[in-house]
């Protein structure tokens, strides 16, 4: 085999990394290098330095350390039984790419993942070494996200958390049965234990000792995970049920949903259909409702009989259409909890409504200025100069929002 150039390796190992949805660079500690002694800053908000035509943000240099892997997960392009081209970066190559990209303002930092080579410990140790070199030799103060290998030794996970801003461990599939079927070498209960371990370490690092000294921060931007959607038969109720458990059990910052997408040299065991992008989008919307709008899981998933979200309309609108008796709400009197349930009102709009109505009565025109999407909201609210009348209960209300039906293609 001829020696691969850095560019060839980069092509292979970024191609191999693109199935990980997360690229967040937000929520870590504030720091900078104004002192001139290091490189990089982090200001809490993430920055997306570019967008690819798949609509995904590029914030971090997202690469695999290597795509050699001893595991055989059916959904993964890097599984041992696949014939994709393999490559492996050296520690120095990853460090150099990160620093040079960062200096040119291409990225916020590094998202490093890897296939499992030799053993989980050996792989994790190499990844930790890259992070250590970036932090300690290059004085890199940008963002580092390390994909953690759940079976790696706890000491390695501990060091990873002290170097990185975020750790993530993928649960891979919405149910344990699906994990066992598609990722035979992975153990779902081991994945959960590792996530629990990360939570405990993070909490321990947040406690002050008796002397009042704060221990070193552990993964200050928290931990996240990813679930592949559409590779197994789980419905959305199952997917979201898994998310609520993960959020509550391991205090995850995010659960990423990744629509299963055809991969080069795919396994014969999986359907090669186009990725369910709309489903993925609806799941994110539902995830938001659960976390920021105080919706309960069964409220969202009981709207449809099969436990899947309505693909044509967003889950909040679907809930509102199924509970029209609650509407219309008077924006000048309704509680915050209820205003958050109005389709077309976001968290910001609601807080603006609440602060303005302390001073005066709100009119219809005010709402649009406050950022509400009145096309959706108008059927569900009463405001000064506006009443939806029979609109709220009209039979064709859903049809006004749903895309027009498409004739089935004959081909």
């Amino acid at each position, binding site marked *: 085999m001829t020696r691969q150039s850095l560019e060839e390796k980069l092509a292979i190992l970024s191609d191999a990394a693109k199935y990980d949805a997360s690229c967040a660079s937000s929520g870590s500690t504030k720091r900078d290098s104004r002192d001139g002694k290091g490189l990089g800053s982090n200001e809490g908000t993430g920055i997306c330095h570019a967008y690819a035509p798949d609509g995904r943000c590029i914030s971090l240099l997202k690469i695999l350390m290597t795509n050699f892997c001893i595991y055989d997960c059916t959904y993964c392009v890097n599984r041992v039984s696949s014939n994709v081209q393999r490559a492996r970066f050296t520690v120095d190559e990853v460090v150099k790419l990160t620093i040079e990209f960062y200096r040119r303002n291409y990225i916020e930092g590094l998202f490093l993942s890897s296939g499992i080579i030799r053993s989980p410990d050996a792989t994790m140790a190499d990844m930790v070494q890259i992070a250590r070199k970036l932090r300690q030799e290059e004085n890199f103060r940008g963002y580092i996200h390390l994909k953690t290998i759940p079976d790696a030794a706890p000491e390695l996970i501990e060091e990873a958390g002290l170097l990185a801003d975020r750790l993530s461990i993928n649960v891979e599939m919405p149910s344990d049965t699906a994990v066992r079927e598609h990722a035979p070498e992975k153990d779902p209960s081991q994945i959960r234990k590792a996530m629990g371990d990360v939570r405990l370490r993070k909490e321990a690092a947040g406690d002050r000792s008796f002397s009042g000294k704060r221990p070193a921060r552990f993964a200050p931007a928290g931990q996240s995970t990813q679930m592949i959607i559409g590779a197994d038969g789980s419905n959305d109720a199952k997917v979201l049920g898994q998310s609520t458990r993960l959020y509550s059990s391991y205090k995850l910052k995010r659960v990423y949903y990744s629509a299963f997408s055809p991969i080069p040299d795919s396994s014969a065991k999986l359907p*090669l259909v186009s990725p369910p992008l709309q489903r993925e989008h609806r799941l994110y919307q539902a995830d938001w409702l659960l976390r920021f709008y105080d919706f309960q899981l069964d409220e969202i998933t009981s709207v449809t009989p099969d436990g899947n979200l309505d693909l044509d309309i967003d889950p909040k609108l679907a809930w509102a259409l199924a509970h029209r008796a609650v509407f219309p709400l008077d924006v000048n009197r309704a509680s915050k909890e209820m205003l958050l349930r109005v389709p077309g009102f976001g968290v910001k709009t609601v807080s603006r409504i609440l602060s303005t109505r302390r001073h005066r009565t709100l009119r219809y025109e005010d709402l649009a200025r406050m950022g509400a999407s009145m096309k959706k909201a108008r059927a569900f609210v009463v405001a000064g100069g506006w009443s939806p009348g029979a609109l709220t209960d009209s039979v064709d209300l859903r049809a006004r929002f749903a895309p027009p039906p498409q004739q089935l293609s004959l081909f």
Partner: protein
Amino acid sequence: MYRAEIPQIGAATAWREAARGFLAKNVPPDQILWGDDSASPDLFGADAAKPPSGQVKVPRSFISMADKVVWHRDPSRFARLYAFLWRLRSDRAHMQDRGDADLSVLRRMEKNVSRCQHKMKAFVRFREIGEPDAARRSFAAWFEPSHHTVEPTADFFVRRFADMDWRILTPDVSAIFEGGKLRFEPGQPRPELPDDASEQLWVTYFRNIFNPARLKVQAMQSEMPKKYWKNMPEAAAIPDLIANAPARAREMAAAAPTLPPLRAERIQANLPEANPHWQAPGGDLPSAISACTRCPLHKPATQAVAGEGPQSAELMFVGEQPGDHEDLVGRPFVGPAGQLFDLLMAEAGLKREEAFVTNAVKHFKFLPRGRKRLHQKPSQDEIATCNPWLRAEIAQVQPRLIVAMGASAAQALLGSGKAITDRRGRVEWRADGLPVLITLHPSFLLRLSDAAAVKQARADMLADLRRAADWIAG
């Protein structure tokens, strides 16, 4: 009539000083003509009186908004800001009125500037203009912002890139950072910047991180508008990526599955052993418990929590079920209730490490609520389903006395969990002849809010533990 000329560099301070002066002298908005340095000279030739100076109190939220709006490209921005400031004199509450039409325009301008700043932080692309091995490296970028954002955004680049020299050149104002000092210079035409080898690597990365099976061009363009593309090296690859995506996706779908490479079988036959760090505590019973799927409680839980302690223990403690913390750690009584338990044990003169500590139910039963898990009391069925594990632990340890802490433990050990407050402190006998001392559950103490009740419950529990200690000693 007054005329206020706001210079392009230092506009925020200049506007603020001018506005403060006008306000102090009660100059109404219609008496002022605001001008940009770059704007065309005023055709009406207004009286160019210097703005007066003075001190005025203004809501803080207005200042932070004005500090953004002054950088907007709209020539009316200074006049709009002052007109709204004038209105604030009579009623500061306008600032909180998000429905106000004037404020709404200003807030929109503020948002435009913030967005423009954000895009500048994201889309500036440096090229190296010095020697890569120089002690202090040197970079330059050409950028065309939509608003006058170079000055308010320059500090971001100082915070990030203070260990190198850099310059961001724009048609408007240029920011130059040399030897740790930042300065602004007037804009300039687009310069020729030298080629940079890292740019090729970046474009390679951009091409390969893109997934052709999920084309979402609209989503990309709404976040990365085309107006920025000409100064971003990777953007040149976009048309080609879009054009070839459907064919690449079809190709992947059409490709027949291949046979695994030869090495796959060999590698799979030699998979490394699972890491011993994560194994459940040794022994057949704990591993059987950790593999238990007899009831649905195992599904959402992290792990089963088996009992812990010497096999020769004379004293056995049974609680209800693992809690949030125990579920994560995999050991019984290590959370807040466990800490209280340890404290009470020590006070009663008992050594925890000499006792066997376990629970009636081995998995944590909870209800997810946002970022918390709410403890749920196990049902009689769940206690019954889990009972064989408890019986097996009892059979293995053969304690001289079992302490049942709380109703669920009493239910599991004696068949009834009723009237615990009446039964506590008593020893009841199991059908197999083992004595069971009933006491409270430490988490019951943690839930009490009345100080007197806590004191009483604590004293009761302590008395029970002392009695257990006496029983073992006797």
